[in-house]
């Protein structure tokens, strides 16, 4: 049988042209495939009140929501596993929907079936043309966490001073640094630095609650906020030391870091380098 290559390639090209938008309206999370058409229905049910029918964060309720709902058209996302400036992975968006955002009106939607959340991810990606022209960034690599020692905590404290984290977060991590009152996000809305000191035992960060999440936050930055990425500034081991120190700024939280500090006789939030 003689293959008509011209016809075959033509069919392939037509197929690709017509299926590519469909593929773009899918999400892939683990073994789930989310579909935008399904997600649209769920978006209308759960999300439209805040994020709006156009996904621009201008839902009916948006004026009364603080912080303002995410603008999916801008496609700037705080919580990513990918480098700053890049699009998040589908898994990142899925995790954000699942986890919600502390100190905001965005609840954790884990009561919804995983398929529903995957469908929502697919639909959210239809709002911005960025998803048509860009790929999601490559997730950063997170090395295994080294042991917590008094030395790592002390080194973390040095980095905290050196990188001037205190300017926003304050020396005690209370979110009251000298720059705190002046901070705005990419929409010129006032934004507050994270208050480590108030964190209770069940506390979360904006993008998770584990040490790994904290590591990821300052290695990827929170895009659209003044919190930059430090990936080009510090080495992975230094970043882990900073994580260990930041945990000591949460004295009300049970942690191995606080245990180390207490074992050394110091108060966690006042640990000094070399003490």
């Amino acid at each position, binding site marked *: 049988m003689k293959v008509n290559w011209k016809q075959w390639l033509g069919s392939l090209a037509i197929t690709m042209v017509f299926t590519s938008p469909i593929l773009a309206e899918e999400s892939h999370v683990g073994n789930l495939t989310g579909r935008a058409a399904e997600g649209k229905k769920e978006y209308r*049910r759960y999300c439209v009140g805040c994020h709006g029918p156009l996904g621009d964060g201008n839902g009916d*309720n948006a004026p*009364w929501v603080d912080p303002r709902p995410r603008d999916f058209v801008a496609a700037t996302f705080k919580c990513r596993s990918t480098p700053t400036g890049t699009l998040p992975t589908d898994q990142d968006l899925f995790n954000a929907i699942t986890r919600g*955002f502390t*100190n905001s009106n965005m*609840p954790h939607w884990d009561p919804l079936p995983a*398929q529903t959340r995957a469908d929502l991810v697919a639909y959210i990606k239809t709002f911005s043309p960025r998803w048509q022209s860009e790929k999601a960034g490559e997730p950063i690599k997170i090395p295994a966490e080294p042991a917590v020692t008094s030395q790592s905590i002390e080194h973390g404290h040095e980095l905290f001073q050196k990188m001037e984290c205190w300017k926003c977060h304050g020396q005690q991590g209370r979110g009251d640094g000298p720059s705190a009152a002046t901070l705005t996000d990419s929409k010129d809305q006032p934004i507050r630095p994270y208050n480590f000191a108030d964190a209770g035992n069940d506390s979360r960060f904006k993008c998770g609650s584990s040490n790994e999440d904290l590591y990821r936050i300052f290695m990827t930055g929170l895009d659209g906020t003044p919190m930059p990425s430090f990936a080009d500034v510090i080495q992975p081991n230094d970043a882990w030391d900073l994580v260990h120190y930041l945990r000591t700024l949460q004295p009300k939280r049970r942690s191995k870091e606080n245990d180390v500090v207490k074992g050394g006789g110091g108060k966690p939030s006042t640990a000094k380098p070399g003490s």
Partner: protein
Amino acid sequence: MNVRMMQPDGVESRNRRVRLGSLMLLLIVFLVASQPSYAIPAFARKYGLPCSACHIGWPILNNFGLAFKDNGYQLGNDKDSPIYQNPSYWPITFRVTPQWHLENTNKVGIDAPGTTTPTTEQSVTVHGFDLSGLDIWTAGTLYKNISFSVLPSMGEGSTFHFENAWVRFDNLLNSPWLNVKVGKFELDNLLSEKRFLTLSSVGGFWYNYHFTPQGDSNGFGGIGDNQIGVELSGHNSNSYSRYSIALLSSVDGAPGLSSGGQGGTARTYDVNVNVNQGFPIKGLGVQRIGAYAYVGRSPTYFLTSGGTVVEAKGSKSFSRVGAFGWWFIKSFDVETFYMHGQDNAYLGNGVPSNRPDLLPAGAVGPTWNGGFVEAHYTVNPQLIFTGRYELVHVSRQANPSNLPNLGNVDSFTIGYRWYPIMLSRAGLAFHNEYAQAKMGNLAPLTQTDVINRSVMLGFDFDY
């Protein structure tokens, strides 16, 4: 000190049937008048979420709404405490349902002219424009992990009652598995009669949730009645796994220690247990199954002092046990429910336990089996169709001389609700429903089946 006996249930008589029939109708009217459905736009206003975020079609809770309720009306974003709300926020919800409705009963005993004795049976139909009772409900959080609800409910011209009033201590020991609620509250029925779609006189309640055999003196009104007590409950983070255990005063939710309807007499307790588990099936939704048991005691007579009732006595046992499921195929869901009920022979025959001689020959504890299948099709968050078939069949009459089908119920209900307004501020539903129920052998003269019918068109306002 005297002992006042409850009247024994003697041989069936015409007058008794008239009374029973009348009581049945009164019960229906009472249930409808006092049957608030729960949907809380105050929460939508607080969190900026549309009704559809928590409700399949309000007031039925979806998975997210159930998790929110289980978490003590908290989203868990550290913004649940009222201190974080705008001072102008007021956690109050109003609900009222202006309506036109028609009620028909096919066999009503009609008095002979100038007498109060029914001599004929005929169909009776009434209809017209009407108004439901009014719910003024406040609920929310007093502080992080301390939630509350107070729901005064009232009908036109009648005094209000507390449909519920409770405080709940949530997430004790930082665990969602430990929550304690104290006060008057809805039993932890996953299939909630307070949050279902039907409102008419005949279809506005689940018969299984309120069934008592004919002639039974049990003061327990059913698992659909809110009860007073303390409840320990828990759930996992997404509320797919849930349990609750409640210790309740045997007062059927009436304040004032009102056992068997007599104030200041209660001295026994009931227990309600409910466990259920959800499991997601890819592409279909979260399926749920569960089981429940309500075990209690109800008095059969009262001690009196100077003619005043002072203490409930002769308490006898009863139980309601069963299983349920909630099955989803995307936008189509089906609720299935089974109940086995039994009352002690003294309760079933309305005989004081200190007068066994008054028990009719062959008297036994009545037992019955019931269930329902209720389906919903959610076209979109603003349009939902519903249909239900329900039955309760007595498997053993308390008095062997009763007709075997006496008191049996076979009913169905169909309807839809259209929500032209579904915002994060308020809700409005146009409600259209038809319901029919056949009551076994309750015709006052012919002892044949009675059929009750309701047609309802209403506007359900929730603000």
